[in-house]
């Protein structure tokens, strides 16, 4: 399951989606808004997505994870809009028979999302703002 969401991400429903009788391992990664970036205090983050393409690019990554590892079920939900400290920006959950596959697939998915998916994050500080990664 791949989705973008303007509402808070519901971890419990993601976990129930991942249930499978063959699953022995489940790795769940949450990317969370933290209170600082390079020691500069963060007030909030604004996430913006090219929705249609973000979903299809995430789906490509999930499809590749299925090709590389024995994935039983997989869920990726990325938040958009304004997020405060402690809110979940992205959830990735992978259920597999054995744990190595769950860890490897989950890590591959988050690493690749950060490289290819058209989602942009603006960090808003008390004294300014910056689009992350935008400048040389």
């Amino acid at each position, binding site marked *: 399951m791949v989705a973008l969401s303007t509402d808070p991400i519901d971890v419990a429903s993601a976990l129930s989606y991942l249930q499978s009788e063959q699953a022995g391992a489940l790795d769940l990664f949450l990317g969370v808004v933290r209170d600082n970036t390079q020691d500069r205090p963060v007030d909030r983050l604004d996430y*913006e997505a090219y929705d249609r*393409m973000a979903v299809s690019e995430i789906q490509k990554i999930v499809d590749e994870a299925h090709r590389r590892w024995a994935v039983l079920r997989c869920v990726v939900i990325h938040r958009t809009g304004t997020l405060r400290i402690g809110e979940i920006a992205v959830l990735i959950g992978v259920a597999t028979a054995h744990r190595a596959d769950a860890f490897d697939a989950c890590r591959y998915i988050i690493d690749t*999302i950060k*490289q290819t998916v*058209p989602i*942009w994050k603006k960090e808003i500080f008390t004294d300014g703002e910056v689009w992350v990664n935008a400048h040389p």
Partner: protein
Amino acid sequence: MNSTISVLLFGIARDLTGQSTVSITLDNDASVGDLLGQLHQRYPSLTGIRSLLVAVNGEYAEPEQRLSHNDEIAIIPPVSGG
């Protein structure tokens, strides 16, 4: 003959141009590279961005890809999801 295509702008590209969509007039056989050239000419501030990619109909496109006036075209500044 020319045609006018509408281009979606996101993130810092939208902030720097002040627009979420711009109309660009291009030759009928114009490529992705031609589009980027025109955009940079019209909005010189875009050169301050680390890299700009172009998506055509929701897929990343190479600079030599030809554009058609009914393509959905988007400018993709460096992504920072996750």
